């Protein structure tokens, strides 16, 4: 897999992963308004420090500038986007149309996600579309790219180029099912996976062990999700209020154990320890750093995690 030179999209992320190097991606949440400069500001911190950056799609079902628009701004700033598309807000027609448009304007990485339920967000009574689910979306993008056909079977004039990503939550229950769901995403056509942010390392090691055993890590690139804890409050919130999240007591205690004012740094220290382990972990091909609303810290974290400089290709 690492020796392939046949590119699905030719994206920078694809090149990094196919060259066998440890990938490092970031995340950028678009603004709640029309100010493109807000995207540019965040992009400044990420450029050169990550291989590509996730542009979220109405994350937590809260309306923001659309991910395709913010992705285009990122491209203008010289930062490669991972265009996130959720199944909650668009039907198959709109999705295919957006994929064509995105590809036409230079978007080359895409993440196919279910999307947080609309109930969480600022328009809780909105109709959730869910015309197709995330696995069907992966298969649809693959069909568009590799067969040059719309879902309807009709030919696409100049098929899109897209490196297809998906998410994986190793911590949701039933635990043993998560590897099977990962297998389904790979079968559907996922090229790379980003996991939910990892705090429970023993559980993650077990998940990767199972994935290795099934041969899944030979078929897909896996990036481990890392989110540095900024505070004890954040750790407690994530532990209890975020569905599907697994935050062990040990992490919370470790943050409580340092003096006030040093908690954020300790959070970064924990994250960097994880990254060091992921670099050596069989089956993990990189890290996805989710420093949401903390983009300005990414250069420092990247430095401490010793992932700089990022590889550059001609």
């Amino acid at each position, binding site marked *: 897999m690492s020796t392939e030179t046949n590119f699905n999209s030719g994206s920078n992320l694809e090149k990094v992963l196919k060259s066998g190097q440890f990938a490092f991606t970031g995340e950028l949440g678009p603004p709640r308004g029309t100010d493109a400069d807000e995207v540019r500001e965040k992009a400044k911190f990420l450029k050169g420090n990550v291989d590509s950056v996730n542009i979220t799609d109405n994350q937590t079902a809260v309306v923001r500038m659309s991910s395709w628009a913010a992705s285009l701004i990122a491209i203008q700033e010289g930062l490669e986007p991972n265009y996130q598309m959720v*199944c*909650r807000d668009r039907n*198959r027609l709109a999705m295919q149309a957006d994929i064509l448009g995105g590809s036409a304007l230079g978007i080359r990485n895409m993440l196919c996600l*279910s*999307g*947080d*339920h609309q*109930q*969480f967000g600022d328009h809780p009574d909105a109709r*959730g579309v*869910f*015309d*197709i*689910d*995330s*696995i*069907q979306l992966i*298969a*649809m993008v693959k069909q568009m790219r590799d067969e040059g056909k719309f*879902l309807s079977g009709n030919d696409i004039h100049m098929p899109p180029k897209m490196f297809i990503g998906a*998410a*994986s*939550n190793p911590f*949701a*229950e*039933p635990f043993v*099912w998560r590897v*099977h*769901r990962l*297998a*389904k995403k790979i*079968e*559907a056509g996922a090229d790379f996976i980003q996991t*939910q942010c990892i705090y429970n390392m023993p559980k993650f090691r077990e998940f990767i062990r199972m994935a290795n055993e099934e041969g899944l890590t030979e078929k897909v690139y896996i990036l481990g999700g890392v989110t540095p804890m900024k505070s004890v409050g954040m750790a407690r919130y994530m532990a209890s209020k975020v*569905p*599907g999240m697994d935050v062990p007591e040990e992490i919370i205690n470790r943050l409580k154990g340092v003096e006030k004012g040093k908690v954020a740094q300790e959070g970064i220290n924990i994250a960097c320890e994880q990254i060091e382990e992921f670099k050596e972990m069989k089956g993990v091909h990189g890290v996805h750093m989710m420093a949401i609303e903390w983009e300005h810290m990414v250069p420092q974290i990247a430095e401490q995690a010793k992932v700089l400089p990022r590889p550059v290709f001609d």
Partner: protein
Amino acid sequence: MIVAKRKPFAEIMAMLQGFNKVLNVGCGTCVSVCLAGGEKEVAVLNTELEMARRLGDESIDIHGHTIERQCDREYLAELDTIIEEGKYVALMSMACGVGIQFLAERYPNIPTFPAVDTSGLAVNQAVGSYEERCRSCSQCVLGATGGICPITLCAKGLLNGPCGGTNKGSCEISSEQPCAWFKIYERLQGQNRLDAIKKINTIRGWKDQSPRNLTQPGYKQPEKMAK
């Protein structure tokens, strides 16, 4: 069965404003069973309306009549003489949305108002308490999901769930709401049939996107569908 919930009283009062001779028609089937619109509920609502109008120094001449079902013409026919002789200026129906419409269609010159909000196809969990189980999607997948409907019971209607938000057996939207795919997994595991969900459920079309007409094999649609 189809379940319904009586509309808030204020909404019913507002709908009937200006109408002083009304027939409230109940239904003896689904809405009777779920205690929303049967004979008893008709009587209770009529009494409430009379009292409320009186408190507002107005009056209402409201009668009640309950038929077996409002979705069948043979039972609606019973009302013809009653309505003609009664000279009602408005009808109210406590049947489900299907019955209300059939009633309204039969007497198109008399305004018909819904006294209930139809709320789904549900099972009877306990007296007065019902849980939605079916969305009548026309493409039943229950054979592959251990008898648990993902279209209805998964908040996202996923066919390849659960999503990453599944939360210790509960749906991400609420800890009170079980995760349908968690339950599907357990049910199929118990039957040793996990293969049914290990394969990808490919894209389906939606068959409920325009009004559906069903005619059983061997039977014919009526000459002219009622407009």
